[in-house]
């Protein structure tokens, strides 16, 4: 048995060399799979439903992949569409795919798999004890579930179902990255441990290649090992770089959780086949007693306005630890006064970040007391509406640039603002709310699949 998998890039829209894709196509893969999302860019994408990468960049990659799929006649599987894998992300990528099909005269059967979760369903599951915290999870209650935009992360099963029902292109909502690459090999009876390990190795594209690049990897999966190689002939893999990739963005490099069980790489052996290719054997898979789907949630926190400035005077810098707490107290009184008691100061967050002191590492920074000659200052004002955040930020910016320095008689300017106006509205701000799993009745329960025939316009007779 040999199953060949083409992973063109780490993220749809991140790009790849067309020559690399051609090399991959020439090796006749059984499936092309590509991840399109991540939580890594923060809660704004799931909270707001907007994709991170541009429409143009996603269309560029998708055009090449749809044409490659058409040439080969094999499935193309794309997961976590639109960055967060929310329903509008799936629809966004589907719309791009239809436009490409029309322009390139491609026809294919398309499956869209949606992963958004209804608040009422989540509350019911929560009451039934079928939403469980993972290590490090925040406290939640029913209100958290009602107020959050939640997606469930699918395993291989909904993707396999879509393939069995005839889908040639699968655009999935939130999915385990590895499930995209593992779905077809599992259906064809490949070894589960090796399949999951191969999937884990290629899910970031050529991130584990030397040098790391936005490009692809290719896997030959056989009975008792898999071989992996970069698609770019100038790029290489080493046994060390492939072994080390199990560390990437994982808490535990030996035990990697999937919805149906755990990949165990403890006994995996990595052997260089030549300068560029690595053989991996010995990985195992332990099915779990309980099937779980990870949940991700994001909710609106408020609206933010920011102010950026710099402080150069050493006298002002020395006085900041005294001046900033006083300024915050002043703002609380000012909010009550200006808004006639209609705005509770507790509903407004005003924060100063001092770049050059401890803005990046916070109060634990071992170098925070070292002398500096210049500080960058970022003021954030977060309030229930954008209007309110902006209105408050105008007097925060003004007062912050005229802090009462005890050494100086009279009005001094204490912050250098590079911009006019100094305030910038940043829009809605979100927070992640869930680090939990749902325990469904079946691997399909949390997902909805819609099939569609995409036909190029001259081919409509067969539609």
């Amino acid at each position, binding site marked *: 048995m040999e199953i060949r998998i083409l992973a063109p890039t780490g993220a749809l829209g991140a790009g790849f060399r067309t020559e690399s894709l051609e090399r991959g196509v020439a090796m006749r893969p059984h499936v092309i799979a590509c991840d399109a999302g991540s*939580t890594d*860019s*923060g809660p704004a994408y799931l909270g707001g439903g907007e994709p991170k990468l541009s429409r143009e960049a996603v269309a560029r990659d998708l055009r090449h992949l749809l044409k490659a799929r058409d040439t080969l006649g094999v499935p193309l599987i794309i997961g976590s569409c639109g960055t967060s894998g929310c329903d509008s992300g799936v629809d966004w990528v589907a719309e791009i795919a239809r436009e490409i099909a029309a322009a390139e005269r491609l026809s294919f059967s398309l499956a869209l798999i949606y992963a958004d979760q209804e608040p009422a369903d989540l509350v019911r599951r929560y009451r039934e004890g079928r939403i469980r915290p993972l290590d490090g999870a925040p406290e939640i209650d029913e209100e958290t579930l009602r107020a959050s935009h939640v997606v469930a992360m699918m395993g291989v099963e909904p993707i396999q179902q879509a393939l069995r029902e005839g889908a040639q292109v699968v655009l999935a909502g939130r999915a385990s990255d590895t499930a995209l690459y593992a779905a077809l090999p599992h259906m064809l009876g490949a070894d589960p441990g090796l399949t999951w390990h191969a999937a884990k190795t290629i899910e970031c594209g050529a991130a584990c290649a030397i040098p790391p690049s936005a490009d692809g990897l290719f896997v030959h999966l056989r009975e008792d090992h898999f071989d992996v190689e970069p698609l770019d002939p100038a790029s290489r893999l080493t046994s060390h770089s492939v*072994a080390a990739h199990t560390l990437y963005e994982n808490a535990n490099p030996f035990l990697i959780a999937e919805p149906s069980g755990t990949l165990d790489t403890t006994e995996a052996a990595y052997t260089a086949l030549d300068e560029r290719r690595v053989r991996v054997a010995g990985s195992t898979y332990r099915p779990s007693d309980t099937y779980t789907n990870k949940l991700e949630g994001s909710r609106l926190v408020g609206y933010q306005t920011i102010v950026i400035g710099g402080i150069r005077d050493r006298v002002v810098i020395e006085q900041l630890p005294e001046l900033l707490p006083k300024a915050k107290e002043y703002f609380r009184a000012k909010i009550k006064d200006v808004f006639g008691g209609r705005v509770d100061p507790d509903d407004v967050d005003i924060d100063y970040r001092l770049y050059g002191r401890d803005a990046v590492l916070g109060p634990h920074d071992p170098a925070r007391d070292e002398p500096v000659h210049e500080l960058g200052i970022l003021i954030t004002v977060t309030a229930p509406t954008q209007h309110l955040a902006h209105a408050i930020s105008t007097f925060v910016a003004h007062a912050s640039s005229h802090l009462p320095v005890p050494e100086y008689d009279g009005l001094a300017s204490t912050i250098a603002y590079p911009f006019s106006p100094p305030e910038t509205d940043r829009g809605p701000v979100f927070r992640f709310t869930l*680090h939990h799993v749902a325990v469904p009745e079946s691997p399909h329960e949390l997902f909805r699949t819609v099939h569609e025939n995409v036909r190029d316009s001259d081919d409509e007779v067969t539609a």
Partner: protein
Amino acid sequence: MTRLLDLCSLIRSKNAGPFWLTFDFMARDTDSYRTLRDSGALNAELFAELYGADPAQVLVVNHDRAEAVKVSFPRPVRQGDLADSDSYGGQQYAPLVDLLVGSETPPVVLRE
């Protein structure tokens, strides 16, 4: 005295999901890896002191095949929160670059 960067070809920090932070210490070679692993310099107490982590929740994994030490713990502030300053967790490794590592020194020598 050996510093962590003398032993490592890559030191990085990154989110492992929005609620965990993870650090990778890739050794330069086998000898460097053994020195680093056996020194015990990368221990739970160090990460508790530097990042406010709960020592009981700090996971330290020695990966012999990758010649790397990996340390993970729940993020003190969840990713992207109002109080989070490093959305990808990408600069959190900074104070470790010059960590002194050696069998003859106590493992934690970052602050008086």
